[in-house]
């Protein structure tokens, strides 16, 4: 399984889309948005520059994580996944490696936007808190990795890509990763609070503020994780039973 993991990571690192959408995109967006926020403003309980940093790091991470789902769809269509199934690699390991690679593809965004926040806006955190933030922002991508796999195993490539993009756009905008939900009308804000993207970023905001995650936030994330896992398992079984 380690060999397959390395194989996948090397391919991922070589994919220009990852650098473009989940590193360059969020960094540039962060620079623009954070420039608009006034110094000393508070958002989500922390300094605006730090709040936007977390939001856009999460935005890029979700983009990276979900995009792996589209790739799964293509690999399935060209028969690569069937090819792997006639090697000694157990299918569950192939899926687990894919899920892990998927979550890891969110990490470059968190690092890149974090560095930008530190350099551009002097977001000051202790080393331990930076590490905690990175780990939380990594672990929090699990539900999105599962959603990506559900899309990748469930849909044909020509459908997977647009569905992926719509899921990403809807979740990240409504979840307040780009524009904080504070600026939303009431109904939309309540919706935002129920989304995994908001609760994902909340992990980061509270971590920056030195607070533990809220039980309700973890609860919402857990519910979405179970839902997406069920969906992914169903899509996977369907994709292998079909041939």
């Amino acid at each position, binding site marked *: 399984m*380690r*060999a*397959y993991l390395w*194989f996948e990571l*090397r*391919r991922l690192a*070589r*994919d220009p889309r990852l650098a473009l959408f989940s590193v360059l995109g969020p960094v540039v967006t962060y620079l623009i948005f954070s420039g608009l926020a006034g110094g000393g403003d508070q958002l989500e309980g922390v300094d605006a520059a730090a709040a936007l940093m977390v939001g856009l790091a999460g935005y890029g991470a979700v983009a990276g994580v979900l995009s792996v789902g589209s790739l799964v769809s293509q*690999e399935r269509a*060209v*028969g*690569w996944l*069937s*090819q792997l*199934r*006639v*090697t*000694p*690699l*157990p299918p569950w390991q192939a899926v687990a490696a894919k899920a892990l690679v998927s979550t890891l593809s969110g990490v470059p965004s968190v690092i890149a936007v974090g560095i930008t926040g530190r350099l551009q806006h002097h977001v000051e955190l202790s080393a331990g808190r930076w590490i905690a933030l990175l780990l939380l922002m990594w672990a929090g991508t699990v539900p999105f990795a599962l959603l990506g796999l559900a899309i990748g195993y469930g849909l044909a490539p020509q459908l997977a890509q647009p569905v992926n993009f719509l899921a990403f756009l809807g979740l990240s905008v409504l979840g307040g990763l780009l524009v904080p939900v504070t600026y939303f009308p009431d109904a939309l804000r309540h919706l935002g609070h129920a989304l995994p993207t908001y609760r994902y970023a909340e992990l980061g905001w509270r971590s920056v503020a030195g607070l533990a995650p809220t039980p309700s936030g973890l609860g919402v994330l857990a519910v979405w994780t179970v839902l997406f896992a069920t969906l992914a398992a169903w899509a996977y079984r369907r994709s*292998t039973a079909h*041939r």
Partner: protein
Amino acid sequence: MDDIVVRLTGLTRRFGSVRAVNGLDLAIARGTTLALLGPNGAGKTTAISMMLGLTQPDAGTVTLFGRTPTEAVRAGRVGAMLQDSGVVPTATVREVVELARALYPRPLATDRILAMAGLADRAGRRLDKLSGGEAQRARFAFALSGAPDLMVLDEPTAAMDVAARQAFWAAIHRYAAEGRTVVFTTHQLPEADEFADRVVVLAAGRVVADGPPAQIRALAGGRTVTFDAAGARLEGLELLPGVRSVQVRGDRVVLTTDDADATVLALAAGHGFRNLEVSAGLETAFLTLTAAGTEH
């Protein structure tokens, strides 16, 4: 028993009302290079898919090396090239080969794999930068990396030109020469004739002929004479002029003959028949049997 690598027993798979594979029985001995020959839709790919454990049969069993396909695959005894199965384009030939080597318990050396597949000078190249024939050989390299005892190839040369085809078969031969078992599918008789030492002809999911290439070639070039088995006198049929083989399939007797006229005249004189049909060559046999098969 020990020498039977693949054993299919009563293997059946339906898609809706169509029986893609219909009661397939087949035992393949170690060291055989076997061609599964048949027209498109004969059930070759479905049979291969069940043989590898990718598709579950509706009825019947598959054993590879006396175990289930999944167990044999997990144990690293099987390598396969599936039909239309691409390899991930962003990887290089070497990366794909190294991956396969890591997945199998007793892999071949990388240089040997590349040489066998004729890709020694393409190791660093990305798969999407290869020609069609080279890409196919890269997939072959992936399949052979683990030195599997059984190699299964589904329409391996479908996308190749003549030169690529020759190079590819040369590679297969180097591999099979080491006492390994190779099963490949094709819809081209010359390919089966040239490269296999046993040819199994499949039509409408059933075996319609099984023998060494020479016998299948004769079947293809000659005629088949079929008539109802009911009421026919079967003994002595193989002695009739021109007759090469006698088989009873369902309720029909099938004679293959080099001289259909002489066979039919002798039949009329000595044996009698009902619902006699004479058909030419393998292609006709394919069509007849395919049509008969789908009526069920």
